[in-house]
C-alpha cells in the first residue's frame, strides 16, 4: 500500500509540468481592498518540472530524497516521505547538497600529476588513458607476483559498493581493501560483536522506548543514523501519550544534552566504570531480567568449564563496581548512579546507547570494554530485540556474487598480511585505516594505492603522517569530486560524480527491518566524470584474464540490477520509488530460530552460535586465550585471568603529561558540517556551522567559563591549542555546558585543500592528536590526547 501512495504522489508531482502552463493565467491574490492599485501579480515558474527520488550521501544516515528538477536544473531537495529513515524530513546537509552538485570547485576532467608530488601541477588526460594506466599497473603487479601491493582505502560505502570493492581487490589478489570504519563506528561494532555476537552497530527503537541512557551517543547531532535518532527522540517525547526521558552522559552538553532531561558531565574515558556501577545497582536491587540473563545469557553467574572455575559477570561486578567506588572514578555521585539505574529499570523499555565517533568511549582497549559494558545494560534488563529496546539490523537478500574463478596469483596475494595489520598486529581489528601510514613508514611496501571516499590526511588523527607515507608509495589514485587534502598528493585524480549524478544502492540501516534505497542520476552528469565502480569495471575488463572474468557486467547499474534482482520488486519500480522495504517486521522471539540466526551470535567466528548473549565474552577468550600475560599487557590490559573477558574499567592511557597538558581534547562532529570532507566546501553549511557558539565560517575551540577564567582567556580570543604532537590556532568560545577539564573542537574545519569554501577555514583539531592506534582493536585513538590552550 506504501507503493500505491507513492505512485499517486509521483503522479501529482508529474502534473506540475502541465500546471505550469496554466499557472501563468491564474489571477493573483487580490490585495486588501484598501490598496488603490488593482495589482495582479502573476505566479511564474519553470517550464518542465519533474521529481526524481535519490538517496543522500552526506552522512551515514542515507536519507531518501526527492530532487525537484526544473528545466534540467536541480533546484530543490526534499526528504522522501517514503523513506523509513527520514520520513519526509531532511537535514541541512541534504538540503544544501545542491551546493555540492553545482560547486564551482568540482573536478571536471581526469588529472595526471605533471609536477612534483603536492606541487599542484596537473594535466588533463582522457578516461581511456587513466584506465589503461591503472590496468597496466595492476597487471604488472600481478605478473610480478605481488598483487597484495595494491591497496584500496575506502570511506563511506553504501549498499553493494563495499562488497564490490572487496571483490575487486580479491580478484586482483590483494587483501588490502581497508575501510575507515576504525575511525568511527568500529568501536561500537566490536562491542556488539563480543557480547551479542553481531558485527554491526545496534539499532535502537527509540519510538517505543521510555528511557534513553546515552553514553556519549550524540544522538541529535552526529552518529551512524542521526536523522533516525532525531525523529525517534522527537516521537518519543511528544509524538505519543507518554513522554520518555533522555539522560545524556557526556563531558560535553551540546545540543543533545541541552535538549535532554538530564545531563551528566562524566570524567572523560570512564563510561565503563559508570555502566558497570549501574550494572552493580541493577543486580543488587534485583532489577534485572532474570529469565534473560539465565536462559539467554552466558557467563552471568560463575561457571566452570573443563573443571576450571570461571568468575561470572555478576560476582565480578558486585565485587568491583560499588557505586561509591564508581563515584570516585567517574565523578558522578553514587546517589545519581543509583537513581538513574532505578529510573532506567523501572521505565522499561529503555535503552543504553553506544556512541559512534564523538563520544569519549574509545581511546584504548578500555573503549571496547566500555562499549561492552554499556551494551550489557540492555541485556541485563532483557532488552535485546524487543520493541523499545535494541534491535538488530536485517538486510535485503541480495543475489550473491558469482564465484571467483581459480587464480593462483590472486589466491597467493590474498593470503598475505594486511597492510594495516588488522587481524595480525591488532588481533581484534577488522580494519585499521589510520595505521596504514605507520606501516608504510615502517617499510611495508605498497605500489598502488586507491583512495575513494577517503581523505586520510584530513580525517585521521595525526593525519600529516599520511603525507610522509604517500611519498613512499609510487602510485596513488584518488577518486574525488574535489581536489581534497589527500588528492593533492596523488598521481592520478579521477573525478567522481557527486551522489546526485550516479548509480548506487543503499541498504537502509537503523530501523531493524530490511530495506533498500537507490541513488540514481538526478540529472545528466555535469562534467566528464565516472562513477568509481564503473572505473573499476572498465579497469577489470582492460586487465583481462580472471579479473575480467570476475566482472562480467557492463556498468555498475547492471551490477546493481544483478544483485537486487530478488528483493521483491522490479528495477523500474525501484527507480520510480527510490526505496523498497519489506514491511511487517516483528522482533524475533527469544530462543526461536530467527533469534539464533539474526539476533544473537550469528556473526561469531569461533565461539558457539547458541543464541546466548555473552556476559563473559567467549569470542574474546577465543581470540586472546593463546596470549601470554606479557602479550596481554602489551595490548594495554591491566588485568589477567577472567577479568580480561569480562567488561571492566581500564584507565585510559593519556598522551601528554597532565601538568603540562591539563585539558582533554574532543573533536566533535556537527549536525551542519557532518563527517564528510566534501561538506566543508558547501558555503551554506560553512555559514551555519557555528550556530551554537555564534560563529560562522571558521572553527573554534569550546571551553568552560571557569577554565577560561583560570587561563585569562576571553571569548573570541585567538588561541593556540597545543599537544605534544603539534599545535593549531583557532578562536575561543565560552560554553558553560562543558566539563572544565575538556575542550572541544568541531570537525571538518582546517582543510588544506578541497575548494575555495573549505580551504584554510579554521583549524583541524585532529592534527594535534596522537595518531596512535589502539594495540588490540586497531581503532584510532581519538580521545586520549591531552592539550593545553594559550593565547596566540
Amino acid at each position, binding site marked *: 500500500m506504501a507503493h500505491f501512495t507513492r505512485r499517486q504522489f509521483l503522479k501529482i508531482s508529474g502534473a506540475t509540468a502541465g500546471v505550469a502552463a496554466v499557472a501563468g493565467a491564474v489571477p493573483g491574490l487580490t490585495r*486588501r481592498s484598501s490598496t*488603490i*492599485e488593482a495589482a495582479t501579480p502573476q505566479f511564474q515558474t519553470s517550464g518542465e518540472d519533474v521529481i526524481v527520488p535519490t538517496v543522500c550521501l552526506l552522512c551515514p544516515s542515507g536519507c531518501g530524497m526527492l530532487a525537484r528538477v526544473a528545466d534540467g536544473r536541480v533546484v530543490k531537495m526534499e526528504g522522501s516521505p517514503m523513506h523509513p529513515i527520514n520520513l519526509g524530513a531532511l537535514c541541512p546537509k541534504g538540503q544544501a547538497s545542491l551546493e555540492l552538485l553545482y560547486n564551482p570547485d568540482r573536478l571536471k576532467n581526469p588529472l595526471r600529476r605533471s609536477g612534483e608530488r603536492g606541487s599542484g601541477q596537473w594535466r588533463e588526460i582522457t578516461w581511456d588513458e587513466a584506465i589503461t594506466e591503472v590496468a597496466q599497473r595492476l597487471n604488472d603487479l600481478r605478473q610480478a607476483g605481488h598483487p597484495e601491493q595494491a591497496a584500496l582505502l575506502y570511506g563511506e560505502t553504501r549498499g553493494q559498493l563495499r562488497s564490490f570493492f572487496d571483490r575487486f581487490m580479491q580478484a586482483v589478489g590483494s587483501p588490502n581493501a581497508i575501510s575507515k570504519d576504525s575511525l568511527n563506528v568500529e568501536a561500537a561494532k566490536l562491542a556488539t560483536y563480543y557480547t551479542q555476537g553481531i558485527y554491526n552497530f545496534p539499532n535502537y527503537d527509540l519510538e517505543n522506548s521510555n528511557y534513553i541512557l546515552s553514553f556519549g551517543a550524540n544522538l541529535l547531532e552526529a552518529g551512524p543514523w542521526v536523522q533516525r535518532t532525531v525523529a525517534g527522540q522527537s516521537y518519543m517525547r511528544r509524538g505519543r501519550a507518554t513522554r520518555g526521558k533522555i539522560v545524556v552522559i557526556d563531558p560535553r552538553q551540546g545540543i543533545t544534552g541541552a535538549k535532554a532531561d538530564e545531563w551528566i558531565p562524566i570524567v572523560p574515558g570512564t563510561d565503563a566504570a559508570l555502566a558497570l556501577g549501574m550494572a552493580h545497582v541493577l543486580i543488587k536491587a534485583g532489577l534485572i531480567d532474570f529469565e534473560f540473563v539465565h536462559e539467554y545469557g552466558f557467563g552471568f553467574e560463575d561457571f566452570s568449564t573443563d573443571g576450571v572455575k570461571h568468575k561470572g559477570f555478576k560476582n565480578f561486578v558486585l565485587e568491583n563496581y560499588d557505586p561509591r567506588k564508581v563515584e570516585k572514578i567517574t565523578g558522578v555521585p553514587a546517589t545519581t548512579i543509583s537513581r538513574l539505574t532505578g529510573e532506567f529499570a523501572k521505565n522499561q523499555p529503555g535503552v543504553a546507547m553506544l556512541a559512534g565517533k564523538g563520544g569519549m568511549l574509545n581511546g584504548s582497549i578500555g573503549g571496547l570494554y566500555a562499549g561492552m559494558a554499556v551494551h550489557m545494560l540492555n541485556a541485563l534488563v532483557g532488552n535485546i530485540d524487543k520493541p523499545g529496546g535494541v534491535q538488530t539490523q536485517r538486510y535485503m537478500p541480495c543475489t550473491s556474487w558469482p564465484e571467483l574463478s581459480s587464480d593462483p596469483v590472486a589466491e597467493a596475494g590474498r593470503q598475505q598480511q594486511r597492510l594495516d595489520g588488522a587481524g595480525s598486529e591488532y588481533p581484534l581489528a577488522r580494519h585499521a585505516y589510520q595505521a596504514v601510514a605507520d606501516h608504510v613508514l615502517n617499510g611495508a611496501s605498497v605500489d598502488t594505492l586507491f583512495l575513494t571516499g577517503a581523505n586520510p590526511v584530513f580525517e585521521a588523527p595525526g593525519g600529516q603522517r599520511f603525507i610522509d607515507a604517500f611519498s613512499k608509495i609510487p602510485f596513488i589514485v584518488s577518486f574525488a569530486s574535489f581536489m581534497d587534502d589527500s588528492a593533492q598528493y596523488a598521481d592520478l585524480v579521477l573525478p567522481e560524480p557527486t551522489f546526485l549524478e550516479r548509480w548506487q544502492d543503499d541498504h537502509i540501516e537503523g530501523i531493524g527491518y530490511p530495506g533498500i534505497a537507490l541513488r540514481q542520476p538526478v540529472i545528466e552528469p555535469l562534467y566528464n566524470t565516472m562513477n568509481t565502480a564503473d572505473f573499476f569495471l572498465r579497469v577489470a575488463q582492460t586487465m583481462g584474464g580472471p579479473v575480467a572474468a570476475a566482472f562480467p557486467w557492463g556498468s555498475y547499474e547492471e551490477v546493481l540490477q544483478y544483485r537486487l534482482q530478488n528483493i521483491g520488486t522490479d528495477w523500474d519500480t525501484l527507480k520510480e520509488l527510490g526505496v523498497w522495504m519489506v514491511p511487517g517486521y516483528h522482533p524475533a522471539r527469544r530462543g526461536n530460530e530467527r533469534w539464533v540466526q539474526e539476533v544473537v551470535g550469528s556473526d561469531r567466528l569461533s565461539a558457539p552460535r547458541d543464541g546466548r548473549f555473552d556476559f563473559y565474552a567467549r569470542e574474546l577468550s577465543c581470540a586472546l586465550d593463546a596470549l601470554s600475560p606479557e602479550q596481554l599487557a602489551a595490548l594495554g590490559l591491566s588485568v589477567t585471568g577472567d577479568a580480561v573477558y569480562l567488561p571492566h574499567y581500564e584507565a585510559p592511557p593519556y598522551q601528554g603529561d597532565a601538568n603540562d597538558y591539563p585539558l582533554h581534547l574532543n573533536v566533535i562532529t556537527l549536525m551542519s558540517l557532518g563527517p564528510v570532507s566534501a561538506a566543508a566546501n558547501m558555503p551554506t553549511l560553512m555559514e551555519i556551522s557555528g550556530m551554537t557558539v555564534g560563529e560562522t565560517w571558521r572553527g573554534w575551540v569550546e571551553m568552560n567559563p571557569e577554565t577560561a577564567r583560570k587561563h585569562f582567556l576571553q571569548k573570541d580570543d585567538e588561541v593556540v591549542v597545543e599537544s605534544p604532537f603539534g599545535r593549531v590556532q583557532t578562536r575561543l568560545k565560552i560554553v558553560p555546558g562543558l566539563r572544565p577539564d575538556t575542550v572541544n573542537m568541531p570537525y571538518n574545519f582546517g582543510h588544506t585543500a578541497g575548494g575555495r569554501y573549505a580551504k584554510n577555514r579554521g583549524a583541524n583539531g585532529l592534527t594535534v592528536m596522537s595518531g596512535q592506534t589502539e594495540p588490540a582493536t586497531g581503532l584510532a585513538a581519538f580521545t586520549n590526547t591531552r592539550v593545553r590552550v594559550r593565547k596566540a
Partner: protein
Amino acid sequence: MNFPLDNPFYHFVYQLINTAGIGGLIVIVETILILIAVALSLRGITNGAKVDEPEVYAYPTPALHHHNGQD
C-alpha cells in the same frame, strides 16, 4: 486587537491612513498651498511698489504703522 472596523468612523480613519497615495497627495497639496500662499504674499509685496507713495524708507520703525503715509 484592532480598530473597530464595523464602526464607520474608525473604518474611515483606518482606510484613510491605509490608502496608498494619500500621503503623497497630502504632501503635494500642502506644498502647493504653502507655495501659493507665499507666492500671493510676495506678489502683494511686489504690487506694493506700485502704490503711489513718494516716501520710501530703508528701514521701518513701529511708528510707521500709525503713519498715514503722507508727509
